[in-house]
């Protein structure tokens, strides 16, 4: 498959990259690992005039452990994150999520965490070849006015299938976005626009520089379901974080349940999460109730557009949440001794 024509630019440092982004804005796309971008370009879904390669920007590839945070550069490869001790220890959900992305030996050396978070939403009516799409009217995401995933939908219902974003939202991560002469930090919770066409709240001249994960004495887990584990995107996934209270180590002080691959963005389920506050770590009934509540809240957003049937995917939501909750509770108990 041929790539469309584009100009290739390779800035030497972050400043150069931001200058180029400020000049080209919408015409430019950033190229990090290319495992998502180049596939989209091959299918004719994207036709950027300029590709700005981040090849020389080694300054964006790091994992730093500070007192209360882990800071990860956006161009850090998935393989580096999986191998990182601090991430395994303090942000297990992210480590697990990165392991699940693509094929172990291949995607992980090229794929980057920034690219994983910023991958565009998917839909099996949209992520098709030029030829397939030429045989029917364009959908919302393709610039038309039809949605093939949901009848009479007035907007795009594409699905965010990022493993990394679901895990990071459970961990309460923040993103640092930079543009020329400007830098801002956003909560990952607030980063999504609820619009399937432009799912991320990032300006065309902005670049994702860093991901900040708070360390707060909590444990986390990530579970997902996919057809072929090595290749496919998740059809349901869940990230969970539990923090025991300082006084009573077997009570849950804070819970965060996030369900991904269901809606336009990973869904933080506040009601299901808060139902676990004050519960004991071995209270499996409470976990089951929270998982059922997670399904009730998340299933309303589900759209039949990423393979498998809608019923099956919704039925699997509580299972993924429950497995993640039990794994997290066990991890806390193990660390308590």
């Amino acid at each position: 498959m041929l790539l469309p024509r584009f100009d290739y630019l390779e800035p030497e440092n972050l400043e150069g990259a931001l200058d180029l982004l400020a000049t080209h804005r919408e015409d430019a796309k950033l190229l990090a690992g290319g495992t998502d971008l180049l596939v989209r370009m091959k299918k004719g879904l994207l036709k950027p005039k300029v590709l700005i390669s981040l090849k020389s920007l080694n300054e964006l590839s790091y994992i730093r452990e500070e007192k209360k945070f882990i800071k990860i550069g956006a161009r850090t490869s998935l393989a580096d994150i999986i191998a990182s001790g601090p991430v395994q220890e303090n942000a297990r959900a992210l480590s697990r999520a990165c392991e699940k992305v693509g094929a172990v030996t291949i995607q992980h050396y090229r794929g980057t965490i920034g690219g994983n978070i910023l991958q565009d939403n998917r839909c099996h009516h949209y992520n098709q070849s030029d030829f397939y799409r030429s045989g029917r009217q364009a959908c919302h995401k393709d610039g038309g006015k039809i949605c093939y995933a949901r009848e009479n939908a007035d907007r795009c219902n594409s699905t965010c299938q990022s493993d990394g974003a679901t895990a990071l939202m459970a961990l309460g991560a923040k993103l640092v976005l930079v543009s020329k002469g400007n830098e801002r930090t956003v909560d990952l919770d607030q980063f999504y626009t609820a619009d399937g066409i432009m799912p991320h709240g990032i300006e065309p001249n902005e670049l994702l520089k860093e991901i900040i994960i708070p360390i707060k004495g909590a444990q986390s887990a990530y579970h997902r379901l996919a057809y072929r584990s090595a290749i496919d995107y998740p059809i349901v996934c869940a990230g969970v974080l539990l923090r025991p209270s300082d006084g009573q180590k077997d009570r849950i002080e804070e819970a965060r349940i996030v369900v991904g691959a269901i809606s336009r963005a990973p869904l933080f389920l506040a009601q299901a999460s808060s139902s676990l506050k004050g519960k004991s770590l071995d209270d499996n009934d409470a976990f089951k109730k929270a998982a059922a509540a997670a399904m009730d809240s998340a299933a309303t957003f589900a759209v039949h557009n990423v393979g498998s049937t809608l019923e099956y995917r919704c039925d699997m939501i509580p299972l993924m949440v429950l497995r993640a909750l039990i794994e997290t509770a066990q991890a806390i108990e193990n660390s308590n001794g």
Partner: protein
Amino acid sequence: MEKIRITLNVNGRPHEVMIYPNETLLDVLRDQLDMIGSKESCGEGVCGSCTVHMDGKPVRACLTLAMEARGAQIKTVEGLANGDELSDLQQSFIDHGAVQCGFCTPGMLMTADALLKENPNPDENAIRKALSGNICRCTGYAKIVKAVAHAAQPQDHCCDCNPKE
């Protein structure tokens, strides 16, 4: 879009080529350098038949721009053998009948080669995990896994490792 002169270091030798920026490493390897060992199958990073090494790590050549491969040490399946002498891994693939139609074989070899460099004595799970990104349409996985396992450690009990003269 203009042609650009770049140098690619493939199998230990520098090659100077004129390319368009939208050409992938696989395009250049196959069309300009005549190294047709690496295959294009899915073209979108799923099947693994285009796997080559960049600085010792297996990557998809179909999703790597040739421009991005400048400065890296690239190794293709042509670089596995030492002249006419096959590598242990290649010989093991032949001995164990791990080649059927052969289209996935270059990718399998490159992925397995990288695995064996990192872990010279992998167990079956490690091999299956490493090869999980390479698809064999003939579904000959059992023999491929066996060939990789026995490549570094020939087994006395295996009749394929000890062919009768």
